[in-house]
């Protein structure tokens, strides 16, 4: 089962008007794999993961998630979104709902499970991101790091097969980055399949099976973290790593 393919992107092309955001992207993600996507801003890494749950439509190529081919049909989009969890840079918690309600809504509405069952699941995952005691609070009453952990728990409540992280620590104050990364590391250790857009290279070293470098909408190179950081093949990768590692 280790080799089961969860995500398969083939020849994906994406344009915003005349601007090409993704150029001929091929990517295969197997069950249990942890992938870190990095690259300069505007390189298409966020766009790439947003195509996987169809927050963005693609113009050419194909994306298959857990055996379901993403096309324009609402049914396909539905099935895929139930299998794919996402965590955003800006948390995007629902401000008018408590932490618990944030976590219960989707299982009740999209999975159609009962309230009591949804609450049990929500409390379990809130406990798992170590925020169970804040369940009755509103998002605005929590710190950024706590909010992001709630967002992770909210996504987990749908019991997804894959988790997408779109720069989950970029909007956080430095002292809160660690608590979110620790949560993600815990998730990785439990065997979750993950694709993370992040500049946290320490996280990449520790967790990633593969690090992928993108520039100008293309995958420039990919490799195991050891080789990727020690011996990058492309000049563009070396330049990027030089720039971001200088700050760390």
């Amino acid at each position, binding site marked *: 089962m280790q080799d089961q393919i969860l995500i398969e992107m083939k020849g994906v092309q994406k344009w915003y008007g005349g601007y090409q955001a993704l150029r001929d992207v091929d990517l295969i993600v197997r069950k249990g794999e942890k992938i870190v996507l990095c690259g300069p801003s505007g390189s298409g890494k966020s766009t790439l993961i947003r195509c996987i749950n169809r*927050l963005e439509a693609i113009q050419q190529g194909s994306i298959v998630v857990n055996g379901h081919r993403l096309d324009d049909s609402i049914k396909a989009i*539905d099935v895929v*979104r139930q299998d794919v969890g996402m965590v*955003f840079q800006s948390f995007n918690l629902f401000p008018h709902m408590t932490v618990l309600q944030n976590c219960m809504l989707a299982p009740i*509405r999209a999975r159609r499970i009962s309230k009591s069952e949804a609450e049990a699941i929500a409390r379990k995952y809130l406990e798992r991101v170590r925020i169970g005691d804040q369940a009755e609070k509103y998002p605005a009453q929590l710190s950024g790091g706590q909010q992001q952990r709630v967002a992770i728990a909210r996504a987990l409540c749908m019991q997804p097969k894959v988790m997408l992280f779109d720069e989950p620590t970029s909007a956080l104050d430095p002292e809160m980055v660690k608590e979110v990364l620790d949560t993600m590391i815990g998730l990785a250790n439990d065997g979750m399949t993950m694709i993370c857009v992040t500049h946290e290279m320490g996280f990449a070293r520790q967790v990633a099976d593969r690090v992928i470098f993108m520039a100008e909408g293309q995958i420039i190179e990919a490799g195991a973290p050891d080789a990727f950081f020690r011996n990058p093949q492309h000049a563009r990768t070396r330049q990027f790593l030089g720039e971001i590692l200088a700050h760390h």
Partner: protein
Amino acid sequence: MTPHFGLPEFGFLLRGLQWTMLLTVVAFVGGCTAGLAVALLRTCGHKGVEWITRIYIGIFQGTPLLLQLFVVYYGLALTGLKLDAFVAVAIGFTVNASAFLGEIWRGAIQAVPRGQTEAAMALGLHYSSRMRDIVLPQAIRISLPATIGYLVQLIKGTSLAAIVGFIELARAGQIVSNQTFQPLLVFGVVGAMYFILCWPLSWWGSRMEARLALAGQR
């Protein structure tokens, strides 16, 4: 001998006030219902539908309410549909309110951060749940000051219904004033009645606005 402004005249004004309030409630409830539909169609993402709603809003915002009332009351009568004055003005005000409220709420829906919709989509929530559970509760909060402001305009605007012979508060005042020759007193009382209706709403609206501004700073 001309009657003086006394209890019977005051009672007549009160009955006018009742009609004003009833017309306001009917127009507001009807306008809210139809306005919600207008706002949802205006933001549905389908180009053609959005254009049609835009034209609908444009027509009712771009022509005088008086004219719209004439069309409903006299125009429909010409086609053989003779409406009671109250029904006619209720329809006229409802349609007009739906355009204005629809536009207010269109703005409020679009003011809810895009990330809210994206998070809801990523969680697999459908359009109906996204709107009902996520976007509208936040949009209504955002739009509350403007919606209350419109309600105040509507209360005062119902005086236009007098033009097709409907006796609401302003028209009642005119009748009493003509009978008693005490226009200052009569219209003073009429004005006070409008004020008592409108001022608390205005106050509430500006308080909501201040609260929202405070919440926005956090």
